[in-house]
Protein backbone atom coordinates (compact mmCIF):
# COMPACT_ATOMS: atom_id res chain seq x y z
CA UNK A 1 0.00 0.00 0.00
CA UNK A 2 2.68 2.49 1.00
CA UNK A 3 4.38 2.92 -2.40
CA UNK A 4 1.00 3.38 -4.01
CA UNK A 5 0.06 6.09 -1.52
CA UNK A 6 3.41 7.74 -2.16
CA UNK A 7 2.83 7.76 -5.88
CA UNK A 8 -0.74 9.03 -5.54
CA UNK A 9 0.44 11.86 -3.33
CA UNK A 10 3.19 12.70 -5.78
CA UNK A 11 0.70 12.83 -8.63
CA UNK A 12 -1.71 15.01 -6.67
CA UNK A 13 1.06 17.41 -5.77
CA UNK A 14 2.37 17.46 -9.32
CA UNK A 15 -1.01 18.40 -10.76
CA UNK A 16 -1.72 20.99 -8.09
CA UNK A 17 1.66 22.65 -8.55
CA UNK A 18 1.46 22.56 -12.33
CA UNK A 19 -2.00 24.13 -12.30
CA UNK A 20 -0.70 26.80 -9.94
CA UNK A 21 2.19 27.54 -12.29
CA UNK A 22 -0.15 27.66 -15.26
CA UNK A 23 -2.21 30.27 -13.44
CA UNK A 24 0.89 32.34 -12.67
CA UNK A 25 1.97 32.20 -16.29
CA UNK A 26 -0.95 34.36 -17.35
CA UNK A 27 0.13 37.15 -15.04
CA UNK A 28 3.12 39.11 -16.18
CA UNK A 29 4.87 40.38 -13.05
CA UNK A 30 4.50 44.16 -13.07
CA UNK A 31 4.85 46.83 -10.40
CA UNK A 32 1.24 47.94 -10.57
CA UNK A 33 0.04 51.33 -9.33
CA UNK A 34 -1.20 51.41 -5.77
CA UNK A 35 -4.67 52.45 -4.69
CA UNK A 36 -6.76 52.13 -1.56
CA UNK A 37 -10.14 52.03 -3.26
CA UNK A 38 -9.46 48.93 -5.34
CA UNK A 39 -12.22 46.34 -5.45
CA UNK A 40 -11.76 42.63 -5.21
CA UNK A 41 -11.93 41.24 -8.74
CA UNK A 42 -15.11 39.37 -9.54
CA UNK A 43 -15.00 36.19 -11.55
CA UNK A 44 -17.47 37.19 -14.21
CA UNK A 45 -18.59 34.75 -16.86
CA UNK A 46 -18.18 37.33 -19.61
CA UNK A 47 -15.18 37.76 -21.86
CA UNK A 48 -12.25 39.57 -20.35
CA UNK A 49 -9.13 40.69 -22.16
CA UNK A 50 -6.03 41.54 -20.18
CA UNK A 51 -3.67 44.08 -21.69
CA UNK A 52 -0.28 44.46 -20.06
CA UNK A 53 1.67 47.68 -20.50
CA UNK A 54 5.32 47.29 -19.60
CA UNK A 55 7.65 49.99 -18.31
CA UNK A 56 8.98 50.47 -21.83
CA UNK A 57 5.49 51.15 -23.13
CA UNK A 58 5.07 47.81 -24.90
CA UNK A 59 1.52 46.55 -25.14
CA UNK A 60 1.25 42.86 -24.45
CA UNK A 61 -1.80 40.84 -25.25
CA UNK A 62 -1.15 37.47 -23.71
CA UNK A 63 2.49 36.83 -24.51
CA UNK A 64 2.43 38.81 -27.77
CA UNK A 65 3.65 42.36 -28.18
CA UNK A 66 1.04 44.21 -30.21
CA UNK A 67 0.61 47.69 -31.61
CA UNK A 68 -2.43 49.86 -31.02
CA UNK A 69 -3.91 49.01 -34.44
CA UNK A 70 -3.51 45.30 -33.85
CA UNK A 71 -4.99 45.68 -30.37
CA UNK A 72 -7.99 47.51 -31.75
CA UNK A 73 -8.52 44.80 -34.36
CA UNK A 74 -8.38 42.13 -31.67
CA UNK A 75 -10.78 44.05 -29.45
CA UNK A 76 -13.24 44.43 -32.31
CA UNK A 77 -12.93 40.75 -33.13
CA UNK A 78 -13.47 39.72 -29.51
CA UNK A 79 -16.44 42.07 -29.13
CA UNK A 80 -18.04 40.64 -32.25
CA UNK A 81 -17.30 37.09 -31.19
CA UNK A 82 -18.62 37.56 -27.67
CA UNK A 83 -21.74 39.34 -28.88
CA UNK A 84 -21.86 41.30 -25.64
CA UNK A 85 -19.88 43.85 -23.69
CA UNK A 86 -16.43 42.63 -22.85
CA UNK A 87 -14.12 43.74 -20.09
CA UNK A 88 -10.64 45.05 -20.72
CA UNK A 89 -8.32 44.78 -17.75
CA UNK A 90 -5.29 47.00 -17.91
CA UNK A 91 -2.23 45.86 -16.03
CA UNK A 92 0.26 48.67 -16.31
CA UNK A 93 3.62 49.43 -14.82
CA UNK A 94 3.12 52.35 -12.44
CA UNK A 95 6.01 54.26 -13.99
CA UNK A 96 4.76 54.09 -17.55
CA UNK A 97 3.74 57.41 -19.08
CA UNK A 98 0.09 58.11 -19.75
CA UNK A 99 0.97 58.50 -23.44
CA UNK A 100 1.37 54.72 -23.61
CA UNK A 101 -1.91 54.06 -21.84
CA UNK A 102 -4.19 56.64 -23.45
CA UNK A 103 -4.04 54.98 -26.91
CA UNK A 104 -5.35 51.79 -25.30
CA UNK A 105 -8.18 53.71 -23.66
CA UNK A 106 -8.92 55.46 -26.95
CA UNK A 107 -8.90 52.13 -28.81
CA UNK A 108 -11.38 50.73 -26.28
CA UNK A 109 -13.59 53.80 -26.69
CA UNK A 110 -13.53 53.50 -30.49
CA UNK A 111 -14.42 49.82 -30.21
CA UNK A 112 -17.28 50.64 -27.88
CA UNK A 113 -15.78 48.99 -24.83
CA UNK A 114 -16.55 50.94 -21.68
CA UNK A 115 -15.95 48.25 -19.10
CA UNK A 116 -12.32 48.95 -18.34
CA UNK A 117 -10.56 48.12 -15.12
CA UNK A 118 -7.08 48.92 -13.88
CA UNK A 119 -5.23 46.33 -11.85
CA UNK A 120 -3.75 47.84 -8.72
CA UNK A 121 -2.13 46.84 -5.49
CA UNK A 122 -3.47 48.05 -2.19
CA UNK A 123 -1.23 50.84 -0.90
CA UNK A 124 -0.40 48.90 2.23
CA UNK A 125 0.55 45.80 0.26
CA UNK A 126 2.27 47.41 -2.71
CA UNK A 127 5.88 46.30 -3.07
CA UNK A 128 8.35 49.17 -3.30
Amino acid at each position, binding site marked *: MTPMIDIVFLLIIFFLVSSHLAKQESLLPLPLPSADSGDTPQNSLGTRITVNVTAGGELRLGSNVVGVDELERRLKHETTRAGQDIEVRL*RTDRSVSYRHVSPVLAAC*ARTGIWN*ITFSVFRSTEAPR
Partner: protein
Amino acid sequence: MRIPSHFSNRSDGHDSKMTPMIDVVFLLLVFFVWTASFQEIEYVLPAELTPSAGTTSEPVNPAPEQQDFDPVVIIVQMRNGQPSWLVNDAPASSIERVRQTLATVAQLQQEIPVIVDPHEDVPLGHVIDVYDAARLVGCSKVQFAAPEKPS
Protein backbone atom coordinates in the same frame (compact mmCIF):
# COMPACT_ATOMS: atom_id res chain seq x y z
CA MET B 1 27.09 -10.92 22.06
CA ARG B 2 24.30 -11.42 19.58
CA ILE B 3 21.40 -9.02 19.80
CA PRO B 4 18.08 -10.84 20.19
CA SER B 5 16.39 -11.13 16.85
CA HIS B 6 12.94 -10.02 18.06
CA PHE B 7 14.42 -6.73 19.32
CA SER B 8 16.14 -6.08 16.01
CA ASN B 9 12.98 -6.83 14.01
CA ARG B 10 10.90 -4.53 16.12
CA SER B 11 13.32 -1.69 15.47
CA ASP B 12 13.23 -2.28 11.70
CA GLY B 13 9.47 -2.43 11.73
CA HIS B 14 9.26 0.85 13.58
CA ASP B 15 11.56 2.55 11.04
CA SER B 16 9.70 1.22 8.08
CA LYS B 17 6.41 2.56 9.47
CA MET B 18 7.83 6.02 10.03
CA THR B 19 9.42 6.45 6.61
CA PRO B 20 6.26 6.87 4.48
CA MET B 21 4.84 9.29 7.01
CA ILE B 22 7.98 11.38 6.90
CA ASP B 23 7.84 11.23 3.10
CA VAL B 24 4.28 12.44 3.05
CA VAL B 25 4.90 15.16 5.62
CA PHE B 26 7.85 16.44 3.63
CA LEU B 27 5.88 16.39 0.43
CA LEU B 28 3.03 18.29 2.03
CA LEU B 29 5.50 20.76 3.47
CA VAL B 30 7.07 21.33 0.07
CA PHE B 31 3.65 21.67 -1.51
CA PHE B 32 2.40 24.27 0.94
CA VAL B 33 5.63 26.24 0.84
CA TRP B 34 5.51 26.21 -2.94
CA THR B 35 1.92 27.25 -3.21
CA ALA B 36 2.10 29.84 -0.45
CA SER B 37 1.59 32.72 -2.79
CA PHE B 38 4.52 35.05 -3.00
CA GLN B 39 2.47 37.03 -5.47
CA GLU B 40 0.70 40.15 -4.22
CA ILE B 41 -3.06 40.19 -4.41
CA GLU B 42 -4.30 42.37 -7.23
CA TYR B 43 -7.38 44.54 -6.95
CA VAL B 44 -9.25 46.32 -9.69
CA LEU B 45 -10.30 49.89 -10.24
CA PRO B 46 -13.23 50.21 -12.61
CA ALA B 47 -12.65 53.09 -14.99
CA GLU B 48 -14.82 55.09 -17.32
CA LEU B 49 -13.72 56.94 -20.37
CA THR B 50 -14.48 60.31 -21.78
CA PRO B 51 -13.06 61.85 -24.93
CA SER B 52 -10.46 64.47 -24.06
CA ALA B 53 -11.63 68.05 -24.45
CA GLY B 54 -10.65 69.52 -27.77
CA THR B 55 -9.33 66.31 -29.24
CA THR B 56 -12.51 64.49 -29.97
CA SER B 57 -14.15 64.37 -33.34
CA GLU B 58 -17.44 62.90 -32.26
CA PRO B 59 -18.47 63.10 -28.64
CA VAL B 60 -19.66 60.03 -26.84
CA ASN B 61 -23.18 60.50 -25.54
CA PRO B 62 -22.95 61.45 -21.90
CA ALA B 63 -25.55 60.09 -19.54
CA PRO B 64 -28.42 62.62 -19.18
CA GLU B 65 -27.81 63.16 -15.47
CA GLN B 66 -24.20 64.09 -16.15
CA GLN B 67 -25.26 66.98 -18.31
CA ASP B 68 -26.77 68.77 -15.33
CA PHE B 69 -23.48 69.51 -13.60
CA ASP B 70 -20.28 71.06 -14.78
CA PRO B 71 -17.62 68.43 -14.33
CA VAL B 72 -14.61 68.87 -12.11
CA VAL B 73 -11.63 68.56 -14.42
CA ILE B 74 -8.36 67.58 -12.78
CA ILE B 75 -5.32 68.10 -14.95
CA VAL B 76 -2.23 66.23 -13.88
CA GLN B 77 1.11 67.37 -15.25
CA MET B 78 4.78 66.92 -14.51
CA ARG B 79 6.99 69.85 -13.52
CA ASN B 80 10.67 69.25 -12.82
CA GLY B 81 9.97 65.59 -12.39
CA GLN B 82 7.25 66.17 -9.81
CA PRO B 83 3.52 65.89 -10.38
CA SER B 84 1.35 68.98 -10.12
CA TRP B 85 -2.40 69.23 -10.25
CA LEU B 86 -4.94 71.72 -11.52
CA VAL B 87 -8.47 71.34 -10.22
CA ASN B 88 -10.71 73.30 -12.56
CA ASP B 89 -7.62 75.39 -13.47
CA ALA B 90 -6.84 76.12 -9.83
CA PRO B 91 -3.46 74.72 -8.78
CA ALA B 92 -3.35 72.22 -5.94
CA SER B 93 -0.12 71.86 -4.04
CA SER B 94 -0.38 68.17 -3.24
CA ILE B 95 -2.49 65.10 -3.85
CA GLU B 96 -3.84 65.57 -0.33
CA ARG B 97 -5.05 69.04 -1.33
CA VAL B 98 -6.74 67.54 -4.39
CA ARG B 99 -8.41 65.02 -2.13
CA GLN B 100 -9.66 67.76 0.20
CA THR B 101 -11.07 69.74 -2.71
CA LEU B 102 -12.81 66.69 -4.06
CA ALA B 103 -14.13 65.85 -0.60
CA THR B 104 -15.68 69.32 -0.40
CA VAL B 105 -17.23 68.90 -3.83
CA ALA B 106 -18.47 65.42 -3.02
CA GLN B 107 -20.14 66.67 0.14
CA LEU B 108 -22.20 69.04 -1.96
CA GLN B 109 -22.93 66.67 -4.82
CA GLN B 110 -21.63 63.12 -5.11
CA GLU B 111 -23.05 62.73 -8.59
CA ILE B 112 -20.89 65.46 -10.01
CA PRO B 113 -18.67 64.06 -12.75
CA VAL B 114 -14.94 64.18 -12.17
CA ILE B 115 -12.70 64.01 -15.21
CA VAL B 116 -9.06 63.09 -14.80
CA ASP B 117 -7.10 64.61 -17.67
CA PRO B 118 -3.41 63.76 -17.35
CA HIS B 119 -0.69 65.07 -19.58
CA GLU B 120 1.07 62.52 -21.72
CA ASP B 121 4.29 62.40 -19.72
CA VAL B 122 2.64 61.71 -16.37
CA PRO B 123 3.44 58.26 -14.95
CA LEU B 124 0.30 56.22 -14.54
CA GLY B 125 0.93 55.84 -10.82
CA HIS B 126 0.15 59.56 -10.33
CA VAL B 127 -2.94 59.30 -12.52
CA ILE B 128 -4.23 56.42 -10.44
CA ASP B 129 -3.51 58.42 -7.27
CA VAL B 130 -5.96 61.10 -8.42
CA TYR B 131 -8.52 58.54 -9.50
CA ASP B 132 -8.15 56.76 -6.18
CA ALA B 133 -8.53 60.03 -4.26
CA ALA B 134 -11.77 60.79 -6.11
CA ARG B 135 -13.18 57.35 -5.40
CA LEU B 136 -12.16 57.48 -1.75
CA VAL B 137 -14.05 60.71 -1.12
CA GLY B 138 -17.15 59.18 -2.66
CA CYS B 139 -17.26 60.67 -6.16
CA SER B 140 -19.23 58.10 -8.06
CA LYS B 141 -18.61 59.35 -11.59
CA VAL B 142 -14.92 59.53 -12.26
CA GLN B 143 -13.78 59.38 -15.83
CA PHE B 144 -10.53 59.40 -17.73
CA ALA B 145 -9.91 61.70 -20.62
CA ALA B 146 -8.43 59.86 -23.55
CA PRO B 147 -7.49 61.52 -26.84
CA GLU B 148 -9.62 60.29 -29.69
CA LYS B 149 -6.60 59.84 -31.90
CA PRO B 150 -3.39 58.60 -30.34
CA SER B 151 -0.49 60.96 -30.81
